[in-house]
């Protein structure tokens, strides 16, 4: 059966050019970038070139880029590193209710085990937090604000430039998890006053297991893991050379195609949203109607349950996801969907459709043909009025 992949927010297929570059690194070089002889210098040059490419894409200086094992590690380094480094300044952390678990759970851990004072800001019904809300949450002892750029479940974009200005004026370190947006939307650290930015290669057709943290020059950040002192001591551990090369190539390709490709994906996204609304009138669009990721359409279908939707679509040949993962048989509905103020039963019927480079109009139309009878069938079983 022809499979249609509509879960690009979960991960993207590796671009063939990325895979080729990584294969060459794995087969043709083996040096440790820390070694001074020729093999080591070759590896170092590859890592440095990738650093240049990531820096160029963000408008950053290469010295401001630190490679990590992915988005989760970048988020952990940003939050833990800032909190540790700024202990003398204060203990307050401000974040939002719809952050990825890599941020939210790290912030809670800092509160539980290290006595951080944590403020988790609510969002409006579209999943947005305002710069004014952030400003009100700041006090003299706030050291860190972490607000994601684009939400992975509902696609909502946050006003990070405004939030960054508020933080800069108060001397508060500002971190944004931009894992869903870098590669898809312009991100210029010259225009956005942000101190720390998390980046993840596999969200823009690079390999899994490699990411980066942008650290603005002068930002105080403590080391979180100890060891050999790589990445100028900021992220110790022998570099994942092939992965880093893959990240660099993926970033360059994403930059080259970003404008045209994001516009194309946004048209597919809008076709999905309009089509779903036309065929399933009581579908609830989750996230912001306009301020959203170009590839993300997300909904709740009252009277259905997310896992049953995902399995039904899987049987019909579509790979999609739901916030109600139901992984333990005792799963709470997604913290993101419930933060929008939807009741629990409605939040259970969440579905996320995220298009990508390989998605065609025919794929979207096939989904639009398959989904309505699935929703109708599940509703006929649950008998929750449609």
């Amino acid at each position, binding site marked *: *059966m*022809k*499979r*249609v*992949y*509509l879960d*690009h927010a979960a991960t993207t*297929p590796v671009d063939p050019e990325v895979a080729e570059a990584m294969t060459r690194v794995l087969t043709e070089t083996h040096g440790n970038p820390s070694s001074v002889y020729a093999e080591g210098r070759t590896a170092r040059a590859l890592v440095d070139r990738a650093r240049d490419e990531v820096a160029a894409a963000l408008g950053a200086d290469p010295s401001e880029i630190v490679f990590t094992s992915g988005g989760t590690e970048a988020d952990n380094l940003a939050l833990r590193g800032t909190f540790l480094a700024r202990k003398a300044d204060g203990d307050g952390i401000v974040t939002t209710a719809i952050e990825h678990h890599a941020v939210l759970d790290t912030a809670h851990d800092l509160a539980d085990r290290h006595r951080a004072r944590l403020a988790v800001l609510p969002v409006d019904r579209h999943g947005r937090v305002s710069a004014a809300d952030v400003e009100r949450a700041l006090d003299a002892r706030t050291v860190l604000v972490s607000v994601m750029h684009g939400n992975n479940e509902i696609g909502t974009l946050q006003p990070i430039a405004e939030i960054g200005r508020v933080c800069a004026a108060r001397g508060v370190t500002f971190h944004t998890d931009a894992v869903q947006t870098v590669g898809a939307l312009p991100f210029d650290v010259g225009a956005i006053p942000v101190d720390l930015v998390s980046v993840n290669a596999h969200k823009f057709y690079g390999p899994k297991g490699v990411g980066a943290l942008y650290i603005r020059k002068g930002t105080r950040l403590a080391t979180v893991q100890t060891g050999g002192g790589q990445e100028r001591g900021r992220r110790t551990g022998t570099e994942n050379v092939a992965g880093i090369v893959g990240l660099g190539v993926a970033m360059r390709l994403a930059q080259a195609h970003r404008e045209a490709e994001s516009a194309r994906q946004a048209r597919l996204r809008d076709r999905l949203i309009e089509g779903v609304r036309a065929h399933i009138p009581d579908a609830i669009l989750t996230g912001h109607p306009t301020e959203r990721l170009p590839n993300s359409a997300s909904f709740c279908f009252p*009277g259905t*349950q997310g*896992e*049953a939707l*995902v*399995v*039904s679509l*899987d*049987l019909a040949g579509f*790979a999609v996801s739901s916030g*109600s993962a*139901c*992984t*333990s*048989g*005792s*799963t*709470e*509905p997604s913290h993101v969907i419930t933060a929008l103020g939807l009741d*629990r*039963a409605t939040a*259970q019927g969440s579905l996320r459709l995220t298009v*990508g*480079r*390989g*998605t065609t109009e025919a*794929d979207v139309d096939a989904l639009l043909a398959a989904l309505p009878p699935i929703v109708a069938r599940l509703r*006929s*079983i*649950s*008998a*929750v009025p449609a």
Partner: protein
Amino acid sequence: MTGEGGPRAAEEYSAACIDHFTQPRNVGAVEAADGKGSDANPSCGDRTTITLRVSEGRVAEVRFRTFGCTAAIASASALTELASGQRIGDAQRLGPADVLRALGGLPQRKEACALMAVGALRAALLDAQVKA
């Protein structure tokens, strides 16, 4: 974007389970039911309601409605099939192990779904006995 087949979300379930999920038996509500019972899984919000009609000490008709996941729907479907035509006492003894056997097993973390179906059936049977 197209890709290869490979293990999918649906494939963690047995063929019997997918069959009950895609073509559930006895969906709906029995009219003028003798017994009605519900059970819910408070941790995930799933709910099953079972209605039944009793005739000469046997389950003459039994139907279910489920708001829930694949396993919850398949469990209720399989259980109503097992309960149909049974003497009330035998139907009351149906347990999660019987549901799991009929479904060819469930992923371990989904076994609570079988329990929910059983809870709804037992409540419906009890309701019928109280009313009788």
